[in-house]
């Protein structure tokens, strides 16, 4: 009995050690791939940063109308954002190469699925990125317009616009990633419809005094101009 138990233990130990020995080259390959990819990422990052600083990328992006990009960039620098994006992409590719070195069917399938999923993932990231820039741009425009019209709740309006756009782009990104399925669509429709309905009710009922006061203020401002108190032009 004891002999049989010992034999079973020896066999299972041998199996585990053999399995581990089989996996070891893969693990080493993974570590090496990740280390090499980190080195390559650092080198590429360094070269890219020097190049982008050389061509004054931050100012050029602002000049091309992408000034809002600096708001979501580390240290308000689109150059650093691009460098970090490339850095992490190289490390991700290195990790995938390392995982592929395991030579297991399951791993291979996982890598294949991951690669086929990559375009969706990148598209979702771009959506979030663009959505964020657009949300900030619109929010700033609404805030400036509201202050110039002397509306008391400019910040609230601006925040509302910002989150509407962010919720919209987040729902689009999740839809692109295939996460959540119909729940996301349904939740988004309920949330978006709810926000619009709430705004309509607020304007129609709760804020009618506020709206009429704002319109009155605007009219009286025009009246002052026409009556000749101030002529800006």
């Amino acid at each position: 009995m004891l002999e049989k138990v010992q034999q079973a233990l020896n066999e299972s130990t041998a199996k585990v050690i053999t399995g581990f020995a089989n996996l070891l080259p893969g693990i080493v390959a993974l570590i090496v791939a990740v280390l090499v990819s980190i080195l390559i990422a650092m080198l590429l990052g360094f070269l890219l940063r020097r190049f982008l600083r050389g061509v004054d990328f931050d100012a050029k992006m602002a000049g091309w109308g992408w000034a809002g990009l600096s708001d979501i960039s580390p240290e308000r620098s689109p150059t650093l954002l691009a460098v970090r994006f490339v850095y992490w992409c190289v490390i991700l590719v290195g990790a995938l190469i390392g995982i592929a070195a395991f030579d297991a069917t399951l791993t291979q399938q996982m890598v294949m699925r991951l690669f086929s999923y990559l375009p969706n993932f990148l598209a979702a990231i771009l959506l979030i990125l663009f959505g964020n820039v657009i949300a900030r741009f619109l929010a700033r425009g609404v805030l400036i317009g509201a202050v110039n019209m002397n509306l008391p709740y400019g910040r609230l309006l601006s925040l509302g616009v910002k989150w509407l756009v962010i919720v919209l782009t987040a729902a689009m990104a999740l839809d692109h990633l295939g996460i959540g399925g119909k729940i996301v669509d349904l939740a988004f429709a309920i949330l978006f419809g709810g926000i619009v309905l709430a705004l309509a009710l607020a304007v129609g009922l709760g804020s009618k005094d506020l709206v009429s006061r704002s319109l009155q203020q605007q009219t009286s401002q025009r009246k002052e101009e026409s009556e000749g108190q101030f002529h800006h032009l």
Partner: protein
Amino acid sequence: MATLETTSAETKERVERIGEADLVVALPSCHNRELLEAAVSSLRAVVPELSSNGKVVILYPESANVDMPGDDESSLLLLPCALSPVERYHEPSLAQGLRSLLTVGRALRARACVMLGSEAAVSIPDGLRLLAEPVLKHGYDLAVPLYARRKLDSLINSGIAYPLTRALYGARLCYPMAADLALSQRLADQYLRPSALAGQPQSGWATTKAVCAGLQVCQVHRDFAPVPIVSEQTDLSSSLAQVLSTLFMDVEQNAGFWQRTRGSQPVRTFGQPRQVDFENPAMDVHKMVETFQRGCRDLLDVWAVTLSPATLIDLKKAAKLPVDRFRLMDDLWVHVLFDFILGHRQRVISREHLLRSMTPIYLGWVASYALEVQNLGQGAVEDRLEKLCLSFETLKPYLLSRWRWPDRFNP
């Protein structure tokens, strides 16, 4: 002969038939038959004074759709042209009209071209005579009006355009953005020269172009500034953004010139100052101060991208003052404007947002200025504006330094 791309084939043909003219006058505000006929009949008395033996060509908008055939040999000729009404301080609409006028003027080898962009029909003869004389008889290249105004009229001009252009370009032209002006052939050549951008016409005010080109400029005393031609929908924020955008673009284009200019010089002024009722009706600045205070609460993040920390602190301090003691010091106002010029150049955020975000600060300046001058007479108000202009000139080195070294630490 200069090319006439902006005019119709019929107009080109008539220009060729006319051959030469002494004076070409554009009347963009005469957009229907009644206005045009009234202007032409009153002009007949003035034309012999200005041109004893040459021809005078009047350009009117093609959109007026008026058929007024004339004898090509008569001294006063009418010609339809690509003109549209000029909005007050709206450079694109003025530039479009000026290009049409100067193109025809150059083709006709006219000694002077006169744009009466904002004159009402009744004042057209007076305006034409006063503006054309310095160019035709005294050899000036540009004559602009110096309008009589009340205390609180033309505030964008008094608080921004005049002091800024005076400090930067060194010429004390009180209305640098006037839509009524007379130009010589030399300035026409300068204005119609293609810009650095291939195929793009030049932009910017004719006044700054004349000063930067070293041409002779003068001003002429005129009555009240005409009523602005702006649509009712245009709000102050849009008008201000439009004016600032053109001024700031000019500053960028002429950076080489204004960086070399020091101080300012008076320009010759023809005529006598017109007497007007100087007082505006009783004023209320509460809403303006309120908008300024709201701006200081809500727009600090937007302003922080272009204003220096010290300027932001001073604005916050000003926002805490009660309305009756509210003041926005000249130095602070000048720093704000200079910082916005730099922010506009560096495109720190969308230019439209940046310029519109200046409205509350401008209203703060208007409120402060209105409170200061409410009990002052005409002379004292002129002194007050002169003090503001001197602040712009004194602080110009700050703009110069930050223009040349934008990354240098600036507390």
